[in-house]
């Protein structure tokens, strides 16, 4: 666990300071590589930043400690955001980050595990991270580890059957150490989640599966910190987010699931992020 920051004399979370340069890196590498999923990256980046900055024991992860916290980025298409966060906290070198999507890169367009790195699981096909995380959380319990498993999924991923299989399994195995964070940006691949395959009432669904459910503003680092510090699991954090957050012409647009910014759009986006 990171330092506790509660009470009256609240110190600002360092994640708030960190996330600016992370967003700049995301914009830069996605623009440079002419790749996609920028909207998804900007909706999930605050979640990832708070997890790594404030919640997990970074030294234990670096040491590959058997009792470390385990983070699984199941929303594999927002890989650029994950790589930029891992770079910020020293798990991916600047050189590797710059090679994102280059020939021979270690950083593919979907989250890519390679030997001896700190990415627990390659993802990209939705619905794999949560069941894998049920396995690691179960392993942590069997080892009497104090480590927790954090799985970040997209709201579109809630269409997958395995999400609901795991909603049952985590409750059955009483996985108090399992946290699923849903990046609830309301947009999936082709349209809004509610017009494709309606998820609401989403919180009630998880509650009915006997999960501890917290619904928060997924861009508020304080709310993320508070929810992620709740150790009464299995815990489902519905993080209400905005696709393309922070860039006015990207916010809430399906288009930015796919589009790569032009030079002009990149300059405008960077200005807004820095503003």
């Amino acid at each position: 666990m990171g330092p506790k920051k509660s009470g009256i004399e609240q110190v600002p979370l360092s994640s708030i300071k960190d996330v600016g340069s992370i967003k700049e890196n995301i914009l830069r590498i996605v623009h440079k590589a002419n790749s996609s999923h920028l909207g998804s990256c900007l909706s999930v980046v605050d979640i990832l930043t708070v997890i790594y900055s404030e919640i997990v024991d970074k030294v234990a992860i670096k040491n590959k400690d058997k009792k470390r916290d385990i983070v699984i980025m199941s929303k594999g298409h927002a890989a650029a955001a994950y790589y930029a966060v891992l770079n910020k906290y020293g798990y991916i070198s600047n050189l590797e980050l710059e090679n994102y999507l280059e020939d021979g890169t270690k950083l593919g367009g979907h989250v890519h595990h390679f030997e001896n790195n700190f990415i627990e699981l390659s993802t990209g096909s939705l619905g794999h991270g949560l069941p894998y995380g049920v396995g690691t959380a179960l392993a942590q319990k069997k080892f009497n580890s104090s480590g927790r498993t954090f799985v970040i999924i997209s709201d579109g991923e809630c269409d997958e059957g395995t999400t609901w299989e795991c909603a049952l399994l985590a409750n059955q195995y009483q996985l108090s150490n399992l946290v699923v964070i849903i990046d609830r940006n309301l947009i999936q691949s082709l349209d809004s989640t509610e017009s494709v395959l309606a998820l609401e009432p989403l919180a009630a669904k998880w509650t009915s599966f006997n999960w501890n459910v917290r619904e928060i503003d997924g861009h508020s680092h304080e709310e993320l910190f508070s929810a992620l510090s709740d150790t009464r699991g299995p815990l489902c954090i519905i993080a209400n987010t905005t696709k393309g957050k922070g860039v006015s012409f990207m916010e809430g647009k399906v288009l930015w699931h796919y589009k790569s910014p032009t030079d002009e759009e990149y300059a405008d986006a960077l200005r807004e992020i820095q503003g």
Partner: protein
Amino acid sequence: MRNTFAAELLKAARNDSTILLITGDLGFGVLDEFRSELPEQFINSGVAEQSMMSMAAGLASQGFRPFVYSIANFPTFRCLEQIRNDVSYMKNPVTIVSVGAGMGYGAHGYSHHAIEDIAVIRIFKDIEIYSPSDQEETIFCIDKILNRSVPSYLRLGKGGELSLKLSYGFEHTNREKITGDFQGAVFWTGAIGSEVLKAKGQLEGEGFRISATSFPEISKEAICEALNFNVDLPILTVEEHVFEGGFGSSVLEIASDIGHKGRITRLGIDSRNKHQLGSQSFLRELNGLNSPSIAIKLKALMESAT
């Protein structure tokens, strides 16, 4: 075979708490002893094969040795992408155990027939395939799996298989310890071995000299080993699996690669027969996989070579 598996795994798990037996809510009467003696090492995932497989991969990633047990296609086809991405690609040492190999579930029908499984699993080079013929080979396979820490697939008969009483002539294959001037060879994998040996016995009674090799593991090493022993002999391959992509196909590919000069013919399941219902012995006969049909095929092969 499945009872041998359960007993052997229990024996190993008593001394190794990392061994886990995970079932997709199947194994009534077969897994009971394991479950009651080692409840902490037994997990029932419910009827949720996809999550079961990824969960097993997650457990394996943290140092456990999960054996995922289910019937026929449920632990393979039902969760093939989980096997591909989370087990094979991630090289997590999960052992997938499929019971009811071939048409072991007889009149239960096609949903319960594991007849295309070798073809799909062998695509994944990171998964080792084990397909024992009898109890002794099942023990050989479990020992080998436990001594290696890699993804594995164990294909088991439903039960009641006879002991073939072969002896391990080689590291990878199982054969009679005889050498001689053979006229032909027969290679098989799995419980169909009992039919093959009956056919072989009949032909030996007619004066044929036949080299017989069982493949409890289907690997390049095993096939090379057997081809090198049976240099340029005509070979019949027999499997309770469709012709496409199975054991016989593996033999043909490797024989071609190494330039084996003898003729190779195959026996397997004609997939057009998949709508037929009946007992395992009826379905074997229908597909030419009973001992008289095997004898006819093998005899014709040897006679055509002379």
